[in-house]
């Protein structure tokens, strides 16, 4: 088992060493520039001139704070694990709700002209309003848990809706005709032609939506402060100007965002394979 993994690792590295090298180079340059800027602000070598501000800590300080936040409880009595759990709960709930509503709505609006023109005015009116604008009213109406979930819902809903709508609308008519010629019923058309065709668009919508969802949850937690959550953590640390820990929170968001989109991508590949599309 271990041998297989090692062989797999070697194969991956060999094939992708240029990409890996570039990734490391890019990160190294970023960290160096960050250190230089921090050194200038702190008045340390290679700069002289004394302390300007401590608003940007050194990368190693942020790393230490990052590790510490997972190991030890903060002023709120919870570790970063607890904050991640609180945020994940809300993002997951918002995501599932958005998917449950946007997928059927998008398919319907894409395939049925009546539904499209019925739904369009409402969708077009609400879409331009940034989800964050709804935070104060959602917190009051839906409360301290479902309020932020509602914001995440709004953030993820529209990308999925639009992508699914566009995808289901752009099914090649030739494919539909061909299926009909072969004797396909309406349900067959939907399940075997439209749905598989829309799948890539759905996955794009999910990827975009998840990114927006993370932005929404951080903002919603900052303004709602609902007791735990990475967004709340960042705002809390910022209030005390505990910058090392504040940046550590931001790194956590970056990692969580990357992980969730990565998982979505993996699921996408799995679904394609299962549907025989790859």
């Amino acid at each position, binding site marked *: 088992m271990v041998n297989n993994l090692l062989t797999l690792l070697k194969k991956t590295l060999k094939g992708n060493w240029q990409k890996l090298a570039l990734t490391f180079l890019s990160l190294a340059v970023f960290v160096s520039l960050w250190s230089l800027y921090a050194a200038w602000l702190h008045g340390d070598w290679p700069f002289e001139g004394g*302390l300007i*501000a*401590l*608003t940007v800590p050194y990368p190693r300080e942020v790393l230490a704070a990052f590790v510490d936040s997972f190991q030890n*409880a*903060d*002023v*709120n*009595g*919870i570790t970063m694990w*607890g904050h991640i759990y*609180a945020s994940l*709960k809300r993002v*997951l*709930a918002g995501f*599932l*709700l958005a*998917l*449950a509503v946007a997928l059927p709505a998008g398919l319907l609006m894409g395939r049925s002209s009546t539904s499209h023109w019925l739904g369009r005015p409402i969708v077009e009116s609400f879409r331009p309003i940034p989800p964050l604008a709804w935070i*104060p009213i959602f*917190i*009051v109406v839906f*409360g*301290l*848990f479902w309020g932020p979930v509602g914001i995440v819902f709004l953030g993820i809903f529209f990308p999925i809706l639009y992508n699914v709508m566009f995808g289901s609308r752009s099914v090649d008519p030739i494919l539909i005709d061909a299926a009909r010629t072969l004797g396909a019923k309406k349900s*067959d058309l939907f*399940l*075997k032609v439209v*749905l598989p065709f829309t799948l890539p668009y759905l996955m794009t919508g999910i990827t975009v939506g998840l990114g927006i969802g993370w932005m929404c949850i951080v903002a919603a937690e900052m*303004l*709602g*402060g*609902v*007791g*735990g959550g990475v967004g*709340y953590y960042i*705002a*809390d640390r*910022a*209030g*005390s*100007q*505990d*910058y090392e820990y504040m940046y550590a929170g931001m790194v956590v968001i970056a990692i969580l965002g990357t992980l969730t989109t990565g998982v979505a991508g993996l699921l996408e590949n799995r679904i394609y394979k*299962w549907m025989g599309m790859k």
Partner: protein
Amino acid sequence: MDSRVIIAVMIAAIVVVGAVSAIVLLDEDESAGGTVYYVVIPPANMRDALATGEVDGYIAWEPYVSDSVVGGVGKVVLWSDEIMADHPCCVVAVRNAFAASAEGQELTTRFIAAHIETTEWMIEALDHTSSADYDKLVAMAVDFTERNESVVKEAFKHLQYKYQMDSDFISALEHFTQMYNDTGILDPSKITERGYDSISDFVNTYVNETYVEDAESIEPSSTILNPNSPIRLGYLAGDLHQLAQFVAMNATMVDGSKSIFEKYGLNVKKAPGAPFAVGGAVMTAFSAGTVDIGYLGAPPAILNHLNAAVDTSIIAQANSEGSGIVVGADAEVDGLRDMVNMTVAIPGTSSIQFLLLKTALEERGLELEIKT
């Protein structure tokens, strides 16, 4: 393919329902006996949160306490002076770089002279509730807080305006700093990192009494000393504790035609970003260099200086007391012990209200934990 799709949809549906139910069910509170839970909500939204039942209570500064009481939404369980008599609350702080120059020093001393005269006028007015000065003060407070007269009059009864920084003030600040150390809010190494030997050394250095002392010999000025570079003033929105700066800005205070700031030759303007929501925001503005002199709570003035080396000094007190713990008007709560397992809203963990609530609960053997 058909049956597989149907099965897939059914599995997806079960997963969705299961996940949502799990989230809802697992979220139920486990009563931990002896714990009060908190959430962070801006004080302006606390009354609504209490009215809708989103929280069971809150702790905030005036006028947000009397807001609920006069509005019939809540009742006070405990006033902050019952938690800690005559506890310092808001202070006046200056950005050291601003006061470094001779001109800056002069302006700051004059500012404190104006602050002292205003504070003394306010105390006098509050002592004579049938005087015209009292009515004038109430009108200004209504203007500043955007609350009605009854709220403001009620709020006045529970706070004290003062400018002196006596030994009790110093000990109280040392106590707050010690609390920060003990509760892990502040890393104890930060005290030495900032160059202080001890908490006592820190507080005695950070609190600068020279401006209050020098203000005694300041005379009014017929001309404005800084016409082109106004003092940028920071303060909290509608915070009745910080009424002094609003009164001092009022253009009818001196002979009906000048403000108290103008009397002492000062051009004072709102800083960019003012009014701020919480004290931490004032400290951030100090570190950005956009505020010269600010009114804020003593705890954020202490905490943020130690955490981020914000180069400020405390140069006068603004008020003491004036916060309260509020619960629903019909709640069966007679004291803090009845609030076990309840959820209380706080302005933030860097606020004095958080420290006061923690102190009050710990004295009763209760815990304070974040609601998750």
